[in-house]
């Protein structure tokens, strides 16, 4: 099984796609009141799949995710925490970011400092 077998949710304001065998791409904005209602179950299913298939890495391409609210940032914290707390198999959570989008620089720098060895981020443009 791989994440290509999962179904990405169809949502207003944001496109969620599965690209290849290990990448989730998010494009648009996330500013809903409770974004967890839309995305938490999907992120969790990707996480469970990565653990059960002993994946080395999951990439999350947020380079075209232009703006998010703090509730959405919380979803990325939660995802990294799931990996950190995983007892059976840990994979690397790798975020692909844009150097031109401010929230990504501030938030992923902070998150990486708390999740050394679990989370990484790199710029793609």
């Amino acid at each position, binding site marked *: 099984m791989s994440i290509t077998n999962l179904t990405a949710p169809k949502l207003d304001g944001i496109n969620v796609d599965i690209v290849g065998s290990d990448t989730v791409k998010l494009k648009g*904005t996330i*500013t809903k*009141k409770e974004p967890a209602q839309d995305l938490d179950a999907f992120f969790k299913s990707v996480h469970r799949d990565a653990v059960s298939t002993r994946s080395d890495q999951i990439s999350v391409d947020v380079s075209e995710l232009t*703006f998010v*609210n*703090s*509730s959405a*940032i*919380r979803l990325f*914290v*939660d995802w*990294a*925490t799931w990996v*950190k707390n995983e007892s059976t198999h840990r994979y690397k959570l790798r975020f692909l970011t844009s150097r031109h989008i*401010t*929230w990504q620089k*501030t*938030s992923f720098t*902070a*998150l990486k*400092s*708390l*999740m050394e060895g679990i989370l990484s981020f790199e710029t793609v443009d």
Partner: protein
Amino acid sequence: MESKTNRPGPHHPLVFMRFRPAWAYIDGIREFGRFFCETTFGTPEVAERARVIIQETLENAVKYSSDTAESELELLIKSDGNTIEFQVSSLPDAAHAQALMAELSGIHSQDPEKAYLAAFQRASDEPWASARLGIARMRYEGGVELSVKEEESGRIRVTATGKL
């Protein structure tokens, strides 16, 4: 030479908006704020900070507003040429007013970057609890200090002030 009327003083709002506390308005108002700040101050950096501040202050105001005819929100943007100030006035229900006052009081004791890291740590340690990420984010990413004041009729005014 620029005329006096084109140079508003520090107490003159550059933007004043009053609207019902509806989540559906936040996206439009945030993007207007971004456009306004980029056009007025000529720097994308200020415009990006404005986006964060407007989003997070309006979210808090909408979430906790009371459901009455007097509960319209007010957004003001002011500048004296050196600083920029955002004010959001709202009428929260009593329980949330006290919680918000408590949350915002004493937030200056920690460096903004350290406070943002601490909020991430709280979010990771206590997944069920509020991490107050939004307030920490405004200070660090938005580059502002926050204050809150109680006004007449139970309204509160959150002010975010930072350098241009």
